[in-house]
């Protein structure tokens, strides 16, 4: 505790404050937005300890991420390679065996290898699309919410238009005309799915803007941009993270649907492609559960993991919204 300081009086502040100085100069002054990011970082790790949802979600993500990274080592066969038995017969529709853990498809391809490679394309599409969507959404939300007026009006009308376009049909048309490539799916998602996160972030920014500490920043001379990026943006960080983990799920679902409808790329293996292949080759009729159940389950787990993470972080970071 600081040593006894004489009672307060105008003349004595000089001496008294001199005694105080060491306490101030020793500690480095952090004035940029970094501390807010550091705080966000701390929160990121603290949450899993407190919420089961977040823990489970992150574990599932980890498993799939590792599978995607080491896919090449994990596969038994080349996913698209057409395999023949010793007697030059096509290995068609084999049930799960030691060679083919999940059996083979109608066109004699190893289902397990396709499943593993599918992880890579799913996460690739999922993450890139999610990051695009949330980046646009956060930016639009920040600008519309903070500046208001005609900018807000314009951006929100743009959001109305994007919400007015039926999502899946648009992606289908996009894919069919611009060529069946995953990048088109990501483009479709980025173009149409940003309004949801934009609106939520905009309303949070508008409520933040009314907060007293923002007015305090203004009255203490902070410029418009400093207030936006140092005071408002860090507070919005948590919310855009929640949206990213959910957006990954939506992107994967969309990619699967597009591939299923036959507008996905035929050169890269994806879970949607596998399901489309199964459906087209009457796998349902033949009851080949080993062919069309696993890819579906993988999609469910990855997307659910995203929902779990967002729910877990929401419960800890926004307690009053305890859903």
């Amino acid at each position, binding site marked *: 505790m600081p040593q006894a300081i004489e009672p307060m009086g105008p003349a004595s502040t000089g001496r008294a404050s001199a005694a105080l100085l060491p306490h101030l100069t020793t500690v480095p002054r952090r004035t940029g937005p970094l501390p807010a990011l550091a705080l966000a970082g701390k929160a990121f790790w603290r949450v899993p300890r407190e919420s089961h949802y977040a823990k489970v979600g992150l574990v599932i993500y980890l498993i799939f991420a590792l599978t995607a990274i080491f896919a090449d080592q994990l596969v038994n066969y080349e996913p698209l390679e057409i395999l023949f038995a010793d007697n030059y017969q096509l290995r068609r529709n084999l049930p799960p065996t030691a060679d083919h853990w999940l059996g083979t498809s109608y066109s004699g391809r190893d289902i397990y290898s396709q499943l593993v490679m599918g992880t890579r394309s799913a996460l690739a599409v999922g993450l890139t699309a999610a990051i695009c969507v949330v980046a646009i959404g956060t930016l639009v939300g920040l600008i519309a919410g903070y500046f208001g007026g005609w900018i807000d009006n314009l951006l929100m009308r743009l959001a109305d238009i994007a919400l*007015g376009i039926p999502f*899946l*049909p648009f992606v289908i048309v996009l894919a069919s005309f611009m060529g069946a490539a995953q990048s088109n799916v990501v483009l479709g998602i980025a173009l149409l799915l940003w309004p949801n996160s934009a609106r939520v972030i905009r309303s949070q920014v508008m409520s933040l803007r009314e907060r007293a500490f923002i007015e305090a920043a203004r009255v203490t001379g902070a410029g418009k941009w400093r207030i936006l990026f140092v005071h408002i943006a860090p507070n919005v960080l948590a919310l855009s993270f929640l949206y990213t983990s959910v957006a990954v799920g939506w992107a994967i679902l969309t990619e699967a649907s597009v591939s299923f409808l036959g507008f996905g790329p035929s050169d890269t293996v994806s879970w949607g492609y596998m*399901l489309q292949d199964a459906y087209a080759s009457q796998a*349902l009729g033949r009851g080949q559960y080993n062919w*069309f159940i696993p890819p579906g389950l993988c999609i469910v787990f990855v997307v*659910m993991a995203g929902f*779990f993470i967002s729910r877990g972080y929401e419960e800890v970071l926004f307690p009053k919204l305890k859903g």
Partner: protein
Amino acid sequence: MKYVMSRLLYAILVLWIVGTILFFMFRLMPGSPLAAFIDQTTTLEQQQALIARFGLDKSLFQQYTIFLQNALQGDLGQSFFHRRPVTEVVMEALPNTVILTLSGLVVAYIFGVLAGAYLAWRRGSAVEGIGIPLALATRAAPEFWLGMVMLAFFSFHLGWFPAGGANSVGLEYDNEWRRIFTVDYLHHLILPVLTLAIYLQGLPLLLMRSNMIEILQEEFITMSKMKGLGSRTIVLNHAARNAMLPVATAFALGIGSAIGGNVVVETIFSWPGIGRLLVNAVSASDYPLAQGAFMIITAVLVAMNFVADMTYHLLDPRIRHAASN
């Protein structure tokens, strides 16, 4: 009132802009729309005739004005594939989609609201521990995969339901309504509706639950307990009524997005709806039909977004008064 007018204006504006985007998208996209019909065999004259017939020789702007005039009178051009007016083809498919979507949504929302309220009331119990992950799982499952599993199990494996289509082959009906109100149609409808319902019930369930939980912690609920009101009265007359507002809005939004979204369900069950029509039209590059189907889906989506806006605005007295005075 002013709010209603301005939102209506915006809705029409959005519809017009989306129509325009759509129009140019179909024309400016790489890959000529007529590619599917022009191959080595067709002679030059035939090509000219085809282009002229579909008005592709006029300037882009002229095509656009014609398109607008026709659209306003409900004429969306000729379908390449069906050789019939697009509107006619689309109108045949629309009832199937509407019935499928509405029945799916109604089943989903009734189940979702009841289950959500129940989970909110049994907060912190074991039921919740299973309920929420299950609800999240249904939202995480792709619709078409759910359809595949249902088809494989109930139709092929157990044979309880037909494997697709809306009516058994060979049955004749003299008019549209007779076709729909038959047991056979219903028998075809069950699996697709069930699939749609399983997929769609996640949203109302989670929404109702979180609303109920939030409202059950409100001061006026504690006040109701102090008034000695029974828990049934409190839950139904007070908590549920407040919690229903966002759910009603979600229902309207649900209709809009479902009509656009159940393209996959219609495809998997080969249900002759507008979604499947669009997919087939796009893969067959029959772009007038694709464009027409797309426009109808968009119109319904924009209309439903407007309706959702209105339901929230009219149902909640706080907002109704704020906007009008």
